[in-house]
């Protein structure tokens, strides 16, 4: 099956700063692709180029087989775009927002009425459709924001960090909605700096840092990149040269200290745990908490870039 999105060699420079450097990936129908990276990594710049909202210095974008750039018109109909901001009109009702953007997308009246009702149902806003968007909670506004992107039945839905600033309950509702989209054959490009979201939603993930995709694959493929390395997080108080002492323990790959949090990577952390805690105690630090985690995308990111996702 032909990919819905093919992006190759995307490059963007702002003055002297190289914001995006040779980024490329493909998304198949029904696939959810995650672009995972910290703030400023180049996620929004990349999708702005994919959407034709930003001129690219190099590279090519094909959506549904048609090239996209800033001068494209019809080809943009294949894309549903959900920006990071809550891009709705607060003084229009939920239904009016959907009707306006639907008409702008060229939907005829019958299809518009049907799609508005369907989308309101999908995002759980049917009961509040007549209320102005400014009267919605943040989570409801976010859902309306996503609904507008879905309205015209695009082949590719691009969501730029859609859960930023959302409470946990609304966040779960949004993630459930997005998870269901792939089942309907929609290709989804999802950018986030939340590792859990990428793990939960995405079939494949591209890890982006400083404008470059440093790794790409399924969760399993990515965690295999660092071997079966577990992560031990130790909350400590005091101590000197704690990281160095722990790094010297048998079975420990690396240890880094960030404020009072010691992050230790070990192939079999369970076996090395006693030695790790002994080393912490010998360094004069007291332990306030310990967590052990099997490999995840956070660990992959740490392994590949030497920094945490939220740095």
């Amino acid at each position, binding site marked *: 099956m032909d990919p819905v999105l093919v992006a190759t060699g995307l490059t963007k420079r702002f003055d002297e700063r190289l914001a995006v450097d040779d980024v490329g990936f493909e998304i198949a129908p029904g696939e959810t692709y995650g672009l995972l990276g910290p703030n400023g990594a180049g996620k929004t710049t990349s999708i702005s180029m994919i959407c034709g909202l930003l001129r690219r210095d190099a590279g090519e974008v094909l959506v549904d087989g048609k090239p996209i750039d800033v001068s494209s018109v019809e080809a943009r109909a294949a894309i549903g775009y959900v920006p990071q901001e809550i891009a709705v009109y607060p003084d229009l009702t939920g239904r009016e927002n959907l009707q*306006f953007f639907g008409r702008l997308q060229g939907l005829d009246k019958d299809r518009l009425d049907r799609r508005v009702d369907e989308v309101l149902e999908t995002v759980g806003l049917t009961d509040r459709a007549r209320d102005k968007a400014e009267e919605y909670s943040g989570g409801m506004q976010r859902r309306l924001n996503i609904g507008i992107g879905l309205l015209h039945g695009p082949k590719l839905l691009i969501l730029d960090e859609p859960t930023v600033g959302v409470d946990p309950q609304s966040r779960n509702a949004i993630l459930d909605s997005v998870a269901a989209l792939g089942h309907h054959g929609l290709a989804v490009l999802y950018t986030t700096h939340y590792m859990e979201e990428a793990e939960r939603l995405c079939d494949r993930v591209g890890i982006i840092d400083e404008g470059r995709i440093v790794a790409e694959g399924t969760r399993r493929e990515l965690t295999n990149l660092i071997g079966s390395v577990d992560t031990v997080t130790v909350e400590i108080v005091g101590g000197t040269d704690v990281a160095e002492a722990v790094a010297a323990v048998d079975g420990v790959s690396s240890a880094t200290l960030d404020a009072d949090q010691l992050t230790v990577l070990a192939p079999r952390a369970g076996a090395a745990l006693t030695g790790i805690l002994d080393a912490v105690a010998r360094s004069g630090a007291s332990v306030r908490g310990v967590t052990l985690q099997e490999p995840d995308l956070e660990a992959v990111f740490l392994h590949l870039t030497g920094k945490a996702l939220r740095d």
Partner: protein
Amino acid sequence: MSPTWLLTRKDLTQRLRDRSFIILGIVAPFFVAFILSLVAGPAFDQTFEATYVVVDGTGLAGEGLVEGLTDSGIEAALVASEADARTAVDDGAADAAIIIPALDPFGAPTPVSVYGNADGGFALNVAESIAGSVAAGLDQVRLAVAVTGDPAAAAGLGAVEPAVAVQQVGAGDQVLDGTTYLAVGMSIFFLFFSVQGSILNIVEERTNGTLPRLLMAPVGRGSILLGKTMSSAITGLVSMAVLVVATTLTLGADWGPWYGTVVLSAGAVLAAMGLGALIGTFTENAEQASQFAGIVATVFGLLGGVFFQITSGPGFFDLVTRLSPHRWVLDGFGANAGTGSFGEVLADAAVTAAFGIVFGAWAFARRSRLTGVV
């Protein structure tokens, strides 16, 4: 429905719902004009009034002087002697006495003096000015007699008369009465706020993410920008139309012929749109755009004379005021309501519109700053 009209209709709906159009476009200019016309209107219509008495030692210049002053709307009368003149001033019957001594063609220059109270103010200043003018005229006659040696040349004293005409100046070439001036001034002043606010809505849409969403629709970007522009134009023209009717019916303002009013309003709307678009390219967000637009509209308004009448004439200040589109609109309405031809009105409207075209072209060159597509 075309995308352009769809966007225009959406913007107009929003402008009506948030009441900004009603408040900025209609209520504020009407009430400010109304209040100012009550407070300051009479001052706008004020004319110079004074009463002078004239003593004529030459027996030739006084009659012409009194006639000239009377023709200028100033009360003046000849009296027989300097003592009578001083009495009239001392009794408060006259503001000043202009005393013309007998002419000595072969003697020294004739000093024309003024008698008045020290606190005579503007009336005394005007009398002194007139006296100086008469003295200059007399001196020319004295010199003519001295050079020719012909006392008959003294008959030329009659030529002194025109030099003492006093011109009542209102708003230069403009002939708007105080109430109309304030109605026009406030309408134009708030029109710029209203139209600029409408077009700067693009900046707000850029900031809150709806503009990228609009630009993602499968319609030409020109249609999107045209839709935003049309809502500004409609906002401005409707606002002006309502204000013209309201101030005419309630305040008695006289805007002049409707066709002149239409072309001048269109010119003003175009200028405000161009200026608003240009401001949008220099600002980062809606709040900054609003502040910047307010400052620019106020400075241009003050410079253009929306709060006070600016007298036409040469000089640096006059040149500076012509850098404001408001000045040209006001001049245009002055011509429209007064004795100006429609050609003059069109010229003023054209210059006003040219401001909009220049500002708009500049904004177009910087459009990537407005839309965020770089």
